[in-house]
């Protein structure tokens, strides 16, 4: 039975994510103790804020090792925004920090063309191109807009793991999938109907 565990990494917008699953009538709880992770069928790693602080919080609470253990056992996980970035090997925000290392790749500052229209953070609704078929895309049209707010992005990642991109000055990684590990750079919990559909698609993976 689907039972979503939303990981509390200290600085994330947990309530928004919980509200989204409640609205969808999908059983989800906020998890504050890493020992409870085995109880859940799916994990969500939400996140706002900086990479370094996010990892420090995961480490201090013991979630870093617990999440990796569960995911290595085959449990589906989705990282949202900073949560997706924390799945990487390293992040460079406020100094190089080691990530969870579940996705081979590094998170770097968004490189923008020097034109006043490109501002940081990248905030707002941007179309996402679906590069590959995925169970996450079920009932979602190609080039649907999702809500982004971030200044950092995956810089290096194997092409086959990128299933969606967006364009902000150049192509950037928007959605990743590697076996049962997923991540969205945008906030599905803030992207209205299409975002809710994506969360539902994740919850329906077995």
């Amino acid at each position, binding site marked *: 039975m689907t039972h979503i565990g939303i990981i509390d990494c200290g600085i994330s917008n947990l*309530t928004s994510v919980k*509200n989204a699953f*409640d609205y969808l009538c999908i059983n989800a709880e906020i998890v504050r103790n890493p020992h409870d992770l085995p109880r859940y069928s799916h994990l969500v790693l939400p996140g706002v*804020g900086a990479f370094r*602080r996010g990892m420090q919080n995961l480490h201090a609470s013991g979630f870093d090792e617990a999440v990796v253990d569960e995911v290595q056992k085959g449990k589906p996980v989705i990282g949202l925004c900073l949560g997706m970035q924390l799945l990487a090997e390293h992040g460079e925000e406020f100094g190089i920090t080691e990530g969870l290392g579940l996705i081979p790749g590094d998170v770097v500052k968004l490189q923008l063309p020097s034109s006043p229209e490109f501002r940081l953070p990248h905030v*707002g609704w941007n179309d996402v191109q679906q590069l590959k078929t995925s169970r996450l895309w079920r009932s979602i049209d190609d080039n649907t807009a999702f809500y982004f*707010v971030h200044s950092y992005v995956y810089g290096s990642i194997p092409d086959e793991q990128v299933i969606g991109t967006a364009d902000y000055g150049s192509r950037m990684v928007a959605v990743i999938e590697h076996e049962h590990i997923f991540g969205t750079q945008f906030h599905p919990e*803030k992207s209205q109907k299409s975002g809710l559909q994506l969360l539902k698609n994740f919850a329906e993976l077995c």
Partner: protein
Amino acid sequence: MLKNRLIPVLFLKHGWLVRSEQFRYHQNLGNPLTQVGRYNTWNVDELIYIDITPDDHYDILRDDLGGVGYENPRDILDIIRLVSKECFMPLTFGGKIRTLEDIRRRLALGADKVTINTQALADPSFITAAAEEFGSQAIIVSIDVLKNDDGTYEVYTQLGQEPTGRTPATWAKEVEERGAGEIFLNSIDRDGMANGYDLDLIRRVVDNTHIPVIACGGVGKHQDFARGIIEGGASAVAAGNIFHFKEMSYPLAKKDLKKVGLNVR
């Protein structure tokens, strides 16, 4: 490509939605929660709620203006809690934020961002402390500007009541350097006047910063939004009153923005 955002701003006083004019006159429009369903239907890009209650008084006993089936919210936290259960779009809340704990409480209840104004001016290091704690993306600094009779611009604090001697472009640059993620720029003299944005003011702030600027104050017709983006250079355009008083104004405004070739959702 990134789309230009069109943002309804809801000003709240004593727990009620109000129409604001020059930051001085406020007309009660009723219970803020009755509007929430409409914003969902319209698929609005984002919502900004600003609590302009000057004291701690929330007038929850009035029942003449409440919508049927809606309780009167007890305070701003109540409003955040209820709105975030129904609106799956970015939600910003401002007003009366003085401490990191004030921000934490709002984010924990479902706010995505907060706007800071008076406290940022009283103690600019608060912007940095907030950005370090919650990330720049969660911290919007709101700047209220009055155009003086001699044509100069000045930043005001305390709900637009106190002059600070600061010029908007310089203050905007400072808030960016201190870690703000966005600027919410409002014009006191245009507020509620429906005579269009102060495009010169927007341009000055946009040209002196690299973070997104949300323009507000003075929208009277849909064309004003397009001018805010094209002539002012704003990343997002916001308004309060026009969305309360015209039927379907939000979707129709979007249509008009599309018509002039702007990239909107």
